[in-house]
C-alpha cells in the first residue's frame, strides 16, 4: 500500500468504494469538485458549497409543494355535461375500490409515502445537524431516507400523468390541474436536493454511537 493503512482509531480519509470495495485515499475536495473511484468509475464524493443550508431550504420548499401536489386535482375531465377530477391519493383509493388492493398500496407507496417520508427524514436530519454535534439518531434517519429514496417516483409519475392525459384526450376534454404542475415542481426540487446534499457533511458532524455506549447514555 502506498500510504499507511487505515487505523482502528482514526480511519482518516481512507475509504472503500461502495461499488467495488477498492481501498483508496480520498483527497480534500474543492467546493464543486467530485472524486471518482479509479477502478470502477463510481462517484465517491462531491463537495457542495453549502451542504446544509441549501438542501434545507430546498427540502422546506419540497414539503410545501408536496402538500399542494397531494391535495389539488392532477387533471379534470368534462364529457357530456359531467365533470370529474382526480388527485394522487384519489388515484390510489380508486384502485383499492376496484379490488386492486396490492397495486393501490404500491402506487400509494411510490407516489405518496416514499416521497413524503424522504422529505420528512431529510428535513429532520438537516435541522438536527445544523448545529454540530448532530445527535446519533440522525444516522438512523439518514439511513431511512436512503432506503425510501429509490421508491420515490415523482418523475415517473409525472410522465404517467402526461401519458394518461393524452390517452384520455382522445375520448373527452381534459385539462391539467394545479396538482400536475406541483408534481413537476417536486421533480425539480428532489433533483436539486440530491445534487446539493452531501451525506458526508452529516457524518462529519454526528455524535458516534460508540461514544453513546461508552458514556452510558
Amino acid at each position, binding site marked *: 500500500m502506498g500510504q499507511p493503512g487505515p487505523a482502528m482509531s482514526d480511519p482518516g480519509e481512507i475509504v472503500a468504494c461502495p461499488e467495488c470495495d*477498492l481501498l483508496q485515499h480520498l483527497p480534500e475536495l474543492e467546493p464543486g469538485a467530485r472524486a471518482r473511484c479509479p477502478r470502477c468509475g463510481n462517484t465517491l464524493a462531491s463537495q457542495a458549497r453549502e451542504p446544509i443550508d441549501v438542501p434545507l431550504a430546498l427540502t422546506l420548499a419540497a414539503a410545501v409543494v408536496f402538500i399542494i401536489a397531494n391535495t389539488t386535482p392532477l387533471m379534470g375531465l368534462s364529457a357530456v355535461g359531467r365533470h370529474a377530477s382526480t388527485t394522487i391519493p384519489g388515484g390510489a383509493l380508486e*384502485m383499492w375500490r376496484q379490488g386492486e388492493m396490492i397495486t393501490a398500496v404500491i402506487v400509494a407507496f411510490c407516489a405518496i409515502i416514499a416521497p413524503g417520508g424522504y422529505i420528512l427524514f431529510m428535513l429532520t436530519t438537516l435541522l438536527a445537524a445544523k448545529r454540530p454535534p448532530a445527535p446519533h439518531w440522525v444516522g438512523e434517519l439518514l439511513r431511512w431516507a436512503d432506503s425510501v429514496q429509490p421508491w420515490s*417516483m415523482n418523475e415517473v409519475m409525472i410522465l404517467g400523468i402526461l401519458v*394518461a392525459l393524452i390517452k384520455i384526450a382522445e375520448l373527452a376534454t381534459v385539462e391539467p390541474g394545479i396538482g400536475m404542475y406541483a408534481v413537476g415542481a417536486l421533480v425539480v426540487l428532489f433533483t436539486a436536493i440530491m445534487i446539493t446534499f452531501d451525506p458526508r457533511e452529516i457524518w462529519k458532524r454526528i455524535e458516534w454511537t460508540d461514544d453513546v455506549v461508552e458514556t452510558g447514555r
Partner: protein
Amino acid sequence: MTATSLSAAEAGFVSCETCALLSRPVDGSEPGHCRRCGGKLESRRHHSIQYTWALVVAAAICYIPANILPVLNTTTLGSTDSDTIMGGVALLYTTGSWPLALIVLIASVMVPLGKLIALSYLLISVQRGSIQSNRDRTRLYRLVEIIGRWSMLDVFVDTFTVALIQLQPLMSVEPGPGVLFFAAVVVLTMIAAESFDPRLIWDSNAMRRFDG
C-alpha cells in the same frame, strides 16, 4: 487520488454501507455494527447471489401474465374492451402519438425484459468467476439500478386513467388483473437490483491473484 490494489475485504476491513466508515470486523461472519452510525456491517450483502436469483426468477414468472392479461377494461355503454400493455402501446401509436407509444414500449416492455437479462448475465458472470470487462459490468449494474423505476410508468398511467374515467353508465375504466403482475415485476426487479452486490464483480480478481 491514490489508490491501493486491495479491496477493503482483502485488507481485513469492512466498509459501512450507510456512512462509508471503515471498521475492522469483530469476526468474519458477524462483523457487528458501525461505530459511527450504528448500521449493521456487512462485508458483502448477505446471500446476495441466492436472493437476487430468487427475485429474478419470480419476476420472470410474473412477466408472462403481466403481458398477456389485460391491464385495463373499458366499458362503453354496456360493451367492454380489454387492453393489454401492448394493446395500450398500439392504441397510442394509432391515435398518432408515436413518441409516447415508444416511451411506453421502452418503459413497460423493453426495460423489464432488459433488466431480467442484465441481472441474469451479471449473476452468471459472477458465479463463473469472470474477470473480464469488470468496469462495463459495473456500469451495466448502475444502469439497471437507475432505469428500473421507469417501468412503473404504466402502473401510474392505468391508475390515473381508472381514477378519472368513472362516468357510469356512459363510460368507465376498470383495472385488469395484468396490472398486479406488472407492478410485481417492477417491484421484484427493483428489490433484485438492490440485493445484488456489485463488489462481487471485483472479488474474482482477488481470487485469481491468490490462485496464481
